[in-house]
């Protein structure tokens, strides 16, 4: 235990703490830009400088460990002037207009500049060259707004193990981006948007679909249907300054109706559908393997997360046969809305316009995949991130916080709690187990409140084993089999797991992979900035939503039964195969 003095206050600190750690704990605000909690501390931007008694120069607090007896001042004229100089230099190079910038509401650069009391920029230097890159479906890059903090690089490389963006060139010509200043489409990028989620400025944002959606809403010839991903209900409130983890399902539905959507449906519905299809797919793989002694691709990997799917296509194509052929819930929904539902309301697929609200950039990419046209036209027409929906609600002048609660529309809006937890890392696995266990044994999953506690939470790699006991006759060949599962979030963790499987160090039957750390609650399209604390609050909220539902298991959803009865026939049947399953392609690794 160390004792240090910070702004005349004596406080305790632990060995290895940085000055910034201690200051934050003590409620002293030190502005930071290049620092990213748990990911990057490189002392590059020098915005976080403080005075340390005895040191000649100011110290970057994010990389300076405290030592016993250290005397620190975070608020002196020298410190304030130095921070202001750093900020003024950044702003003098910056090319962007806050009035029209899509980031102006939550821009860290702008906010810190205001906090530092900067009203004029004295330096008149060369400005960064602004090049706009809209080469991919999900990510817009604008170099002019980039302050070269490298947070995006750290995330893309260390957290996601992709490495699409790096500092290029040197000196004043330095840009942060793909190889040799090329466009993002020229290098492998999985479109996860984690770079956009951590960027402090408007330099990386989503490709906006807002205009497309407004146009569709005004187009009398279109029936506009909206689906909302499970994770959005636990985060949308943050766009309206509600605390993280506030559940706003009912308000969200009301807001969507007021925006003009004819029908408000739920991606949760198709999440339930995914569980039926993907669960049956797993069981059929197990049957072939255990009963038939056939060689089948195991473990089966989940396919809900399009960034992960693209990651496999680029970097581990040998595992493509292991990825479930099930479309993601977004795409299952699109296909059902433009066939089953369209038929019900007497419309053709081309008269329908399907919008999804997703916590995600990669869903924009997924919707544009050429495989996703099984209704005859593009199954999902537009994808809005949580942040974009927040903006549309504001544009429409809707006072979100005071809205009454409304309910989703029937049939494609009915869902179980098992669908809600798709938002959380571990959720798809738990939902699948709730159903598969009951199919195999005829009994409920034997855990308190149906939760598989070891698979929940923010840990990047989680594992569990369950011995299958008391099987019903049809599945008796599984009696005594120890089912091994793993739950992974963050692609860097996925890479470790894949390497372990490749080397034979680990074997599993079923592995859930989510591209973003913590699962969709931490998606690239969520309100910024998502810290672990925020992730945890959203996770907890989602479990509350699940526990509050009458229906907790996907196979209990009466509307799913109705869908099979009226339209699909049997799970894994011919119609399912055509509309709910898909194929993958190998992509160039470099």
């Amino acid at each position, binding site marked *: 235990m160390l004792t240090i003095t910070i702004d005349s206050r004596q406080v305790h600190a632990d060995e290895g703490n940085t000055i910034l750690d201690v200051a934050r704990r003590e409620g002293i605000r030190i502005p930071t830009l290049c620092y990213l909690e748990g990911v990057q501390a490189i002392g590059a931007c020098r915005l976080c400088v403080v005075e340390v008694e005895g040191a000649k120069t100011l110290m970057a607090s994010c990389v300076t460990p405290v030592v016993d007896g250290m005397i620190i001042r975070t608020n002196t004229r020298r410190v304030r002037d130095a921070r202001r100089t750093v900020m003024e230099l950044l702003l003098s190079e910056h090319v962007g207009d806050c009035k029209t910038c899509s980031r102006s509401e939550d821009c860290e650069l702008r906010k810190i500049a205001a906090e530092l009391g900067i009203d004029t920029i004295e330096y008149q230097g060369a400005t960064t060259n602004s090049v706009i890159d809209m080469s991919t479906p999900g990510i817009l890059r604008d170099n002019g707004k980039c302050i070269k903090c490298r947070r995006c690089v750290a995330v893309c490389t260390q957290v996601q193990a*992709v490495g699409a963006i*790096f*500092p*290029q060139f*040197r000196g004043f010509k330095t840009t942060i981006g793909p*190889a*040799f200043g090329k466009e993002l489409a020229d290098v492998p990028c999985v479109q996860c948007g984690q770079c956009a989620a951590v960027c402090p400025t408007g330099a990386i944002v989503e490709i906006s679909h807002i205009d497309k959606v407004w146009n569709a809403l005004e187009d009398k010839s279109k029936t506009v249907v909206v689906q909302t991903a499970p994770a959005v209900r636990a985060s949308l409130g943050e766009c309206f300054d509600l605390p993280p983890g506030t559940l706003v399902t009912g308000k969200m539905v009301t807001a969507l109706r007021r925006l003009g959507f004819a029908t408000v449906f739920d991606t949760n519905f198709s999440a339930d559908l995914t569980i039926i299809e993907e669960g049956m797919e797993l069981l059929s793989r197990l049957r072939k393997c255990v009963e038939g002694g056939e060689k089948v691709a195991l473990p089966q990997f989940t396919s809900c997360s399009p960034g992960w799917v693209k990651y496999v296509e680029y970097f581990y194509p040998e595992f493509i046969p292991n990825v479930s052929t099930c479309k993601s819930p977004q795409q299952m929904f699109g296909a059902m809305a433009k066939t089953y539902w369209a038929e019900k309301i007497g419309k053709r697929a081309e008269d329908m316009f399907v919008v999804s609200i997703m916590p995600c950039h990669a869903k924009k990419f997924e919707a544009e995949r050429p495989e996703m046209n099984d209704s005859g036209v593009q199954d999902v027409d537009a994808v809005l991130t949580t942040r974009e929906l927040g903006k549309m609600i504001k544009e429409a002048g809707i006072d979100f916080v005071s809205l009454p609660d409304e309910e989703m529309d029937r049939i494609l809006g009915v869902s179980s709690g098992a669908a809600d937890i798709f938002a959380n890392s571990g959720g798809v696995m738990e939902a699948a187990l709730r159903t598969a266990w009951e199919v195999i044994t005829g009994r409920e999953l034997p855990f308190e409140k149906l939760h598989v506690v070891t698979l929940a939470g923010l840990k990047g790699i989680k594992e569990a084993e369950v011995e299958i006991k008391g099987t019903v006759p049809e599945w008796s060949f599984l009696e005594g089999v120890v089912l091994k599962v793993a739950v992974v979030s963050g692609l860097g963790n996925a890479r470790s797991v894949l390497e372990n499987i490749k080397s034979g160090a680990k074997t599993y039957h079923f592995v859930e992979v989510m591209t973003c750390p913590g699962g969709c609650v931490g998606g690239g399209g969520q309100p910024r900035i998502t810290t672990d604390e925020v992730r945890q609050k959203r996770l907890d909220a989602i479990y509350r939503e699940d526990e509050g539902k009458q229906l907790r298991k996907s196979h209990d959803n009466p509307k799913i039964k109705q869908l099979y009865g009226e339209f699909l026939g049997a799970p894994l049947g011919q119609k399912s195969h055509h509309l709910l399953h898909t194929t993958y392609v190998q992509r160039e*690794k470099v």
Partner: protein
Amino acid sequence: MNKSKGKACMCEVAANRSVLLKRLDAVLDEYVSKPGGLIPVLQIAQGIFGYLPEDVLKQICLRMNKSYSEVAGVVSFYSFFSTTKRGRYLVRVCMGTACYVRGGKQVLDAIKQHLKIDVGETTPDGKFTLETARCFGACGLAPVMMVNDVVHQRVKAARVQDILDQYRQGEKGKRAARKGWK
């Protein structure tokens, strides 16, 4: 095989390249697992091919398990790496402080004018590539320019044409070429 001269020629080029790629592979075998091996590999690869073509860089990425953007970041950071085919003679003018104040800039301008190319470009006849460099460690002899690995000291703008002409044909060119520059 030797029915037409043109065809034989192409075979030779292709064969040459595959020999070079084999050499690259051998280098990679040695360096893949070495930490900090990227820069030496890039240097050797540039030595083998004369520059760093895209397919060579991608091969390096694959073998060293690095992303193209990361490797490109390193290549574009150091001025001694080049991703375009270079001329027979690489002309480098020092822009270090000492050279700069003693007229390096004028020397560079004279070369640009004479060769009708900009920094980083190669003359259409494939003879000269022009680059600048930071320091050759010969500040006492400033301004300095190098042609391949031959140093020219105390260069004056007016002498530039003479120097370059020596390489256009003459002995110096052959000597520099013998010293291993492709």
